[in-house]
């Protein structure tokens, strides 16, 4: 209780927010670092995952990479990189460690999302004469999007949390408030820093969850619109038992004019 009171007075003291080592500065560093690493990790992982998912290969790679990623301590990677030849290059050890850390969830989720697209839909699109690239872009990618978005969300929240560790090797970000408090035996500051990081992580989680939820209703509306335009069952196609109710979903991505037969 005493520590919480101390943390509160630390947080409400304007002097702690201003200046070079102040909260605003550290918060900016933290958000910038996280965003940059997330963008880099997406740029690396998503194209590979989408391509592997499209080809249907490398499933073992995607899954094993995620497991290995979990087993490698980020703190150890950070220290190893900062002691290595990159150590003198400013932000790079941190950025590389964090990107390595964010790639596995992105890769696994995008790959699984691509593989879990309805195979019937993919076969149908291929039967319509879609090329591999068209198939990837117009059919598989839209269907895999929710899974990919979940991966990005997981990676983002983990990055916010893990970027804190950069402070242990002398990097910037909100973790610095915690480590600085440790070094000066200032428990109030340690707790205040921890609260700040936790709040930021929860905020990012809430914002991304909200964004995902907001994008869902539009998808549903779109689906409904498509269904109204599509005849309930295209003529010339034999009904088969387990396909009831599936038509709505597939009409989201398959152009309607392709359903006439052949």
């Amino acid at each position, binding site marked *: 209780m*005493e*520590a*919480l009171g101390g943390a509160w007075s630390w947080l409400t003291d304007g002097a702690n927010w201003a200046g070079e080592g102040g909260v605003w500065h550290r918060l900016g560093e933290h958000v910038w670092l996280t965003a940059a690493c997330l963008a880099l990790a997406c740029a690396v992982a998503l194209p590979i995952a989408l391509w592997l998912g499209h080809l249907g290969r490398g499933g073992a790679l995607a899954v094993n990479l995620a*497991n290995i990623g*979990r*087993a*490698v*301590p*980020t*703190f*150890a*990677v950070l*220290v*190893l990189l*900062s*002691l290595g030849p990159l150590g003198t290059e400013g932000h790079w050890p941190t950025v590389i460690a964090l990107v390595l850390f964010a790639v596995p969830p992105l890769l696994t989720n995008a790959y699984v999302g691509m593989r879990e697209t309805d*195979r*019937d839909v993919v*076969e*149908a699109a291929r*039967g319509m004469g879609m090329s591999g690239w068209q198939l990837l872009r117009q059919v598989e990618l839209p269907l895999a999007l929710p899974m990919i978005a979940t991966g990005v969300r997981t990676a983002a*929240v983990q990055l*916010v*949390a*893990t970027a*804190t*560790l950069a*402070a*242990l*090797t002398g990097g910037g970000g909100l*973790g610095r408030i*915690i*480590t600085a*408090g*440790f070094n000066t035996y200032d*428990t109030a500051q*340690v*707790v205040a*820093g*921890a*609260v700040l*990081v*936790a709040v930021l*992580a*929860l905020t990012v*989680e809430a914002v991304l969850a909200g964004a995902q939820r907001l994008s869902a209703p539009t998808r549903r509306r779109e689906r409904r619109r498509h269904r109204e335009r599509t005849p309930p069952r295209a003529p010339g196609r034999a009904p*088969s038992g387990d396909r009831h109710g599936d038509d709505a979903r597939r009409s989201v991505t398959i152009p309607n004019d392709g359903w006439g037969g052949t």
Partner: protein
Amino acid sequence: MGGCLEANDWICGEYLRTRSQELVDATAQHVGIVAVSVGIALLVSFPLALLARRRRAVAGAVLGLTTVLYTIPSLAMFALLLPVFGLSASIVVTGLVLYSLTVLVRNVLAGLESVPQEVREAARGMGYGPARLLLTVELPLALPALMAGVRIATVSAVSLTTVGAIVGHGGLGNLIYSGMDSFFKAEVLTASVICVVLAVVADVLLLGAQRLLSPWARARRRTRGTGVGRWKRSAARGVG
């Protein structure tokens, strides 16, 4: 003679020889913290999962709360627990228990819910009481999901324990931390490698335990044969 210690090489046999006791102690502390944490988390997650299965409202609250805990960064978590425990290993153990709960409660719940209703009915019809049903029917069937959770929790705990170095109880993390301060490369690399090896060994051991605990799964896999993939079946249907 110069030797690799003086040259500050990454890989150094001399370091292993002269500081082996330190490495063994750190590894022992690491294993201890992980084992105690996952053990406690397992004990706590069972009643929580059973409670969550009984009542929907509890399920929402428990799952929501553990997810929120999961988003708190490890450094912040250990720091937040500092006023409660002081500088002790309990901080690290408590933090790891809280993280493991997210994975374990979910997996225990998923495992219990995957037990087919007919199986439960049949056992009840044979006169099984609730406790016997849970212990001899439901738990064995929930084992794969449960063990998957234990494996994830253990591997994550092995890697997260290193962060405990901030409060002086990080097992191998302590060596990484001190090696960082003194630019002692061999110490950092050796401790890091042992840490990864530890995670892999723990995972393999747990997988072996799962095999031993569920011999029927192997028998079933053998009789089921290779099976045709879902997409192949649906492709064939599309043609026919």
